[in-house]
């Protein structure tokens, strides 16, 4: 501003606009009012701004802690559900074990037959001697222990009025099997 060159250039430029500049003169009221009003305004703005920031900050942190509680409760319910899922799938794997399937199948009167007979389509020959299953495993207690199955009841031994909504599916009518399956009479 104290630069000499600038002042010189200004004075030169002002000359052509002397006449319009004179038209802008007008009466101005006393100074004090005009000076104090902006200061209060700025102060209020600043205070309001700070208040807004504080409120926003508070709301934000309330929101975040609310979120933290929500996360915490969701996480705990997730882990609870995870435990349930793990426990249920453990049950499923356990009841699908060969011991459980065999006990249940035998409980329903099924007999294992390791004597397969084949019908050859090319010449109609019967390979093997068809015979009723001897039930080599039937009745025998499981010789391959599984301590996980201790205390579980074969389905056929469940009471008849058990509905299928429990842990195990109930077969309401276990077939009555005579001692040894009758040989088929088909000819």
């Amino acid at each position, binding site marked *: *501003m*104290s630069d000499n060159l600038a002042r010189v250039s200004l004075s030169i430029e002002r000359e052509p606009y002397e006449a319009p500049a004179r038209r802008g003169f007008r009466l101005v009221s006393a100074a004090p009012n005009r000076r104090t009003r902006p200061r209060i305004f700025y102060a209020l703005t600043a205070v309001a701004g700070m208040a807004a920031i504080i409120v926003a900050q508070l709301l934000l942190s309330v929101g*975040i*802690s609310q*979120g*933290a*509680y929500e*996360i*915490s409760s969701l996480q705990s319910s997730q882990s609870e559900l995870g*435990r*349930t899922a*793990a*426990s249920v799938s*453990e049950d499923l*794997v*356990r009841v*699908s*074990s*060969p*011991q459980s399937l*065999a006990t249940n199948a035998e409980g329903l009167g099924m007999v294992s037959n*390791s*004597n*397969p*007979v*084949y019908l*050859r389509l090319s010449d109609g020959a019967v*390979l*093997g*001697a068809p015979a009723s299953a001897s039930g*080599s*495993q039937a009745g*025998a207690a*499981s*010789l*391959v*222990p*599984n*301590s*996980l*199955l201790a205390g579980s009841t074969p389905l056929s031994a469940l009471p008849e009025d058990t509905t299928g909504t429990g842990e195990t599916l109930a077969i309401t009518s276990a077939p009555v099997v005579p001692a040894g399956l009758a040989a088929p009479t088909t000819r």
Partner: protein
Amino acid sequence: MSVRNSSARQTGARTNPTNSRSSRRRTFFTIVVLFAVIGVFLVRLVDIQVVQADSLTADSVGNRSVGQVVYGSRGEVVDANGVVLAGTVMRYNITMSPVNATPFKRTVDGKKVVISVAEAAAEIGAATGQTGDAILLTIGAALEANAKANFAYIAQKVDVDVLRAVQELHIPWTYSENSPSRVYPNGAVAGNMLGYLSGEGVPQAGLESGQDTCLASTNGSETYEKGADGVRIPGSSVTSTEAVDGGDVITTIDSDLNWFVQQTLAARAQETGAAWATAVVQDVKTGKLLAVADYPSVDPNNVGGTKNPEDRGSRAFTQSFEPGSTFKALTMASVLDAGAATLETGIVAPYRYLPANGANINDSHAHPDQHMTLTGVLIDSSNTGMSKFGEKLTDQQRYDYMKAFGVGTPTETGFPREDGGILHPVDEWDNQTSYATMFGQGLTTTALQVASIYQTIANDGVRMPVQLVEGCRQADGTMANVPDQVGTRVLSEKAAQDTSDVLEMVYQKSWVQSKWNIPGYRVAAKTGTAQMPDGQGGYSNGYLVSVSGYAPADDPQYVVSVSIADPVKLNTSAAPAPVFQEIMSQVLKKYRAVPSGVTAPDLPSTW
């Protein structure tokens, strides 16, 4: 601008002079107060940051930070179809603080009720399956040992249902902790082979031990800050080390088949009063083990239920024995492959044979001299006949064939402490051993090695490495530690085919034919009856009876080898033969093997 500023400064200077003294005093006073306050803060700062720093830090960590172990999950052992044989599950320990075990208040139906320690103990006991008195005893014992005891176990390794039942009680002095455990959903199925972990999770035997580098996991940790109510403070610092889960071991075993084999074997072993028994099912083309059964079976969920520690391992891998006559197939194959004899070659088999080197060989039953071919020797299982064929090769030649068949070396399964059997070098053989090794005495093999000999003959003379583990499946699905599966030719195709034809004749003409007959299929098999050592360098009265063979003989696919040790009620091959029949029938049925179309060859057994 500069003009206005300087004038304002002049104005201020002009108004101050009258108050300058009091102002200076006020400034001085303010500074003193300020320094005093700063001093107080400084002292407090040093006190907190230096003097009490350690105890305060310890307090704050205890109050705000929660350190947690993040458990890595030990890998699973699965069978060929993905059925889990060994898996990791989370179990829970119920713990308590004995010193805090006092009566507490509980709101029942809107009323506050005081629950005494005895009542609480009874409630816990009902949930965990103990008696309330037992829990009171635990509390008493803990307090007796230490009057301020703050920790004791109520129950260990309970499942989630029990945990929830205890948590429902809301007893303020009970807590829980995680305790990852091993579970074997199929019980004793392949249990001897799987092995088990100790209570602390250290592998003790079997695959658990042999494949530990694959299965083992690394626990991680996680630390974060919590508020008074236990909720994690948002944005609080978290330091964590990630847990690394173990890889899964994929075995070649079929769990359903393994169950059937174990069940069948156990039934027969009990019926015949056997000491122990093993059965092996192997795939001819790949060398993969489909089932490995041991009797007595161990349930890895309940190892303590198997009293004899020797029954807890897998004898199929770790117990070698003199194989006896099943070994004659190897000698025959060696003689045929070396071209020292053909299927037409005839010898005269006496009851007792005294070779020039001074050995003394006799057959199991007295008989006049017989004019036999190799076929006849195998059908009658004649030791003297076998000796006359075996001596056509040098000891060194036969030794080399045995080594090529895998005798004397543990198989490629990588099973821990697998036995390789005893095969002494040729220069240590005495005269008797030289002949005894022709019919499976004077050397030992495991059940696996016998199965592998029959696999080689069945697979046109190419021996495949015995495979138990497909590999270690990593978290990203890739397989590591995949074993080498390159076969080695031991016999010419012609020699393997001739041997197979003879074994098929044995199956048809053997005295146990009615016991191992499988209609519709051509089968090749051989029995063995070997005296068992008494552990003091001699032989006991016990016999190890076995049957090894494969089917269908026209396109061999499965080897089954059954060994029963010391069946006191029936010490002949009639003991294992029905087991062989049942297992082989089941294998052929299960894997949909096509029944044989062509009739079996008929070879002359005499000349």
